[in-house]
């Protein structure tokens, strides 16, 4: 709509020298300057560099803040969130078993989802000599699924309960109904929802400083180019439109490397 309105200026930009109150190239120059600025603003939201900078700056901050929020929650509520960390490291940033993903990017909009990662550390055991990795620890405990343990390398299972060694019948399996405890079921999802539906995500967006970066970049792009400042009687609309495109590209290219 802005571009359509600005197209009315094209005839004034290609005019002859006018006489009267406004002399020389003034009308053409003012028209060209307005036309340029309108083009910058109109192309802004469709500009890929701007879109990518916008998304990257926001996502980076949200990712950081969400991670720190879950880390702190896991330290204060380890029973609920220990499962999204490697064994014995609840709240430790480097032991996280979750990550946010930026998906479905369209224009300035983007969506975020989360992914629970595979565990790579051995299940701690004081009695067993065998090392075992519970790969899907995070997702199984989050979903509150039960786990069936079967003997693989020996003919029967044995385990300790309160200092007593229990031997299972040959080939029998054991079902652990809540491998992460009762508190883990859907607790990460609840914390995720809480973060993204309340104040916390809004604060993260504010904290991203995008507004500041945007303001400094857009004011750079809106500076009228030298060609328009030069006294002339005729300006090419196509060349001004390209100039606007190039200015946007230059202004936002350094904002974020994502």
């Amino acid at each position, binding site marked *: 709509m802005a571009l359509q309105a600005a197209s009315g200026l094209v005839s004034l930009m290609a005019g002859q020298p006018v006489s009267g109150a406004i002399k020389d190239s003034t009308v053409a120059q003012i028209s060209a300057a307005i036309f340029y600025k309108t083009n910058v603003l109109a192309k802004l939201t469709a500009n890929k560099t701007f879109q990518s900078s916008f998304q990257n700056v926001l996502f980076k901050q949200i990712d*950081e803040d969400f991670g720190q929020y879950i880390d702190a929650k896991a330290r204060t*509520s380890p029973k*609920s969130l220990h499962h999204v960390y490697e064994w014995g490291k609840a709240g430790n940033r480097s032991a996280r078993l979750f990550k946010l993903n930026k998906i479905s990017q369209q224009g300035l909009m983007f969506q975020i989802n989360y992914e629970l990662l595979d565990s790579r550390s051995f299940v701690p055991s004081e009695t067993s000599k065998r090392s075992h990795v519970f790969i899907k620890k995070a997702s199984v405990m989050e979903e509150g699924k039960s786990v069936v343990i079967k003997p693989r390398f020996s003919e029967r299972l044995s385990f300790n309960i309160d200092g007593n060694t229990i031997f299972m019948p040959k080939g029998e399996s054991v079902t652990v109904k809540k491998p992460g405890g009762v508190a883990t079921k859907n607790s990460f999802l609840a914390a995720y929802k809480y973060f993204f539906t309340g104040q916390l995500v809004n604060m993260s967006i504010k904290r991203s400083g995008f507004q500041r970066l945007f303001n400094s970049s857009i004011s750079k792009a809106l500076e009228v180019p030298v060609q328009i400042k030069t006294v002339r009687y005729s300006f090419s609309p196509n060349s001004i439109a390209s100039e606007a495109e190039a200015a946007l590209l230059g202004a936002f290219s350094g904002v974020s490397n994502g």
Partner: protein
Amino acid sequence: MVNYKLDAMFELRKYLWNKLKDTDIFDENNYYADNLKETLIPIIPVQQAPEMNQFLSGKKHIVYDKIGLSYEDNWLICCEQILFTIYSTEVSDIVEIRNFMTDEFRRMDDSARDINKWSNLSDKFKFHSLFIADISPIKPSEEIQGFLASDVILEVKYSRITDNNGRFA
């Protein structure tokens, strides 16, 4: 000699405890531990929660932890988020503490001014602004059986007093 053990979060905890006592929300006599022969402050860092639980059995208390810390473009100003989890067996206790914290800490510059005025504050800190970033609903705690819990997140901006070279004084 610079004291690197000082931390704005500890100063805030001291201030909060002082205010909670002044307003009779907490009675420190209820937190005398016979085994330790001293009165505990029931606002404990999360790292000490496991060993302190035995002394706080059934009693309302607060567990705190730092969520994150970052410096602004002006590197003298630090921005921290602190998570307070309030535990009690009574809903009304949590509501009372939560309302007090809201009343005390939501006023940004004015909340900071009140802390700065407090005579027991370390002279190495100057608070600029505090506000309530988030308050969660009260729900049964998964961590401590029989307790209810609610989170209050504070966002705090402050500076550590520096020397002429910008180092901690």
